[in-house]
């Protein structure tokens, strides 16, 4: 009897030990997988990390598409074509001055600390096409990009908070709700809202290109539109509370600045093109 109890206690201790280690490993996000699906043209590479809340920082990743989905992992994937492979680097690891590791296998380093994960492109000569990142609904997204490489950022089906700061990229947002803060220097912003969240705020700013926004008919907002060296085009029935034209006396452009409300007011919604036009479309394409 005594021996049976001892055996039971030993088994219980082992179970607790194994369970504890597994839990700790999950807490440190060691549970990651890299999968490869090979085709004749090339191979689809995937890298996953478990994450349902917090913020995903995407730093200097060229040509990125972010999709919101109802999952529990952040999934990075890209198609690496056979012709783009660097056969000479076969068997070697990409070395980076920041000491970061190419743990995805396609030139992206992914790390996680606490509630924040960071994906950073290690090589400018990334041997991949567009990087697709599937992000669980509860994960906020922050993207920064400063180089000339690639052309755009695409955000789809995202209802969590999005922050983007880019120098050269065009930013395209589809089926989004906000809150968001988007800034680009040379790129344009094209945003289509499926609905409008009343959390936080929405700000869309381009220094040198247009900003084109489509909102649902029932979107409630306090809207501020500025195009100091451009024009504002809209079909929205804005209840204008403040309007000024000819703001730039040191310019040949008329310029427009409009403050008002839509559907009685709501979330703070700011649209600005510092040197181009602004388009605000209400209720469809």
């Amino acid at each position, binding site marked *: 009897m005594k021996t049976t109890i001892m055996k039971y206690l030993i088994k219980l201790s082992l179970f607790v030990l194994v369970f504890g280690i597994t839990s700790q490993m999950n807490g440190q996000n060691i549970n990651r997988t890299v999968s490869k699906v090979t085709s004749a043209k090339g191979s689809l590479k995937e890298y996953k990390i478990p994450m349902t809340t917090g913020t995903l920082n995407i730093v200097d990743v060229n040509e990125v598409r972010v999709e919101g989905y109802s999952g529990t992992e952040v999934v990075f994937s890209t198609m690496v074509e056979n012709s783009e492979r660097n056969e000479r680097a076969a068997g070697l690891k990409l070395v980076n001055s920041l000491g970061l590791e190419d743990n995805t296998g396609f030139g992206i380093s992914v790390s996680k600390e606490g509630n924040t994960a960071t994906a950073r492109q290690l090589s400018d000569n990334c041997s991949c096409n567009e990087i697709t990142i599937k992000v669980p609904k509860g994960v*906020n997204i922050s993207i*920064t990009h*400063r180089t000339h490489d690639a052309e755009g950022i695409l955000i789809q089906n995202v209802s969590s*908070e999005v*922050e983007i*700061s880019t*120098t050269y990229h065009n930013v395209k947002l589809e089926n989004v709700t*906000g*809150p*968001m*803060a*988007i*800034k*680009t*220097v*040379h790129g344009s912003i094209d945003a289509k809202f499926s609905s409008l969240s009343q*959390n*936080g*705020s*929405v*700000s869309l*700013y381009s*220094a*040198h290109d247009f900003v084109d926004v489509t909102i649902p008919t029932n979107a409630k907002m306090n809207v*501020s539109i500025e195009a*100091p060296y451009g024009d504002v085009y809209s079909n929205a029935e804005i209840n204008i*509370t*403040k309007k000024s034209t000819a703001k730039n*006396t*040191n*310019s040949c452009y008329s310029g427009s600045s409009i403050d008002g409300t839509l559907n009685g007011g709501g*979330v*703070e919604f*700011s649209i*600005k093109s*510092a040197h181009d036009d602004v388009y605000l479309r209400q209720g469809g394409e």
Partner: protein
Amino acid sequence: MNISHWEDKIIAAMEGDLIQSEKDELMLQISRDKDLTDMWENYQQLYSDIDLVPIDKPNLAVKHNFIKWLNAEAEGLKNQTGEGKVVRLFPWGKWASVAAIFVCVLGFWQMYNQNQQLGSSLANLESLMQVQSPTERIKAIRVNYNQDQGDIDSEMIDVLVNVLFTDQSSNVRLAAVETLSNYMDRSEVRMALIKSIATEKDGGVKLAIIDSLGKNQNDEIKNTLENIVNDDSHEKYVIDGAHMQLIRLDNVDM
């Protein structure tokens, strides 16, 4: 003959003021002169008519009331000059003092209340600027620095300047720049923006600062823009932006 002399004598006779010898002399003259005779008869008739007029004796009650009023007035005067006090129908001075004190108390209370509210909203704003969400921080800026609310005090400017120099998010710093640009008439704002050019890492925010500086023109701002144009450490598009603003300012000069 002096008629008026004898007329006076006739009136005196009627009044009974002549002695017998004077009266005899008068009667002698009247009997000798026809005019004096007529005059004598006329005065006799006049005096007899006056005697026929009934004599109204004054009401003693009126006299009594008059004396009573006179005594009361005398008593009043005595009180004014003696131990008595002046009683006004409405005490204007007293009420004016009470109103003045009330207005002062109300004014101090409102000032205190405003300061409390300002302090409270300032503390609230500072705490809002610490929240993790950048879109919430931007919202805090847009809501709390609404131009329709009029001018803002220096402490509110300080909060915004602090955001400009320390916030981790370039989007939030951009919102701070755009809001500060509404207060370019304030020297502390211009100084903060000029200073921030040197520390700002994000090219987009630098461009926004340059655009804001371009709204005002003075030598200080021109010098700053010229320094940017001549500083190769800045991004090329930032230098171009500064150059563009200089051209615009020069066009205004022309």
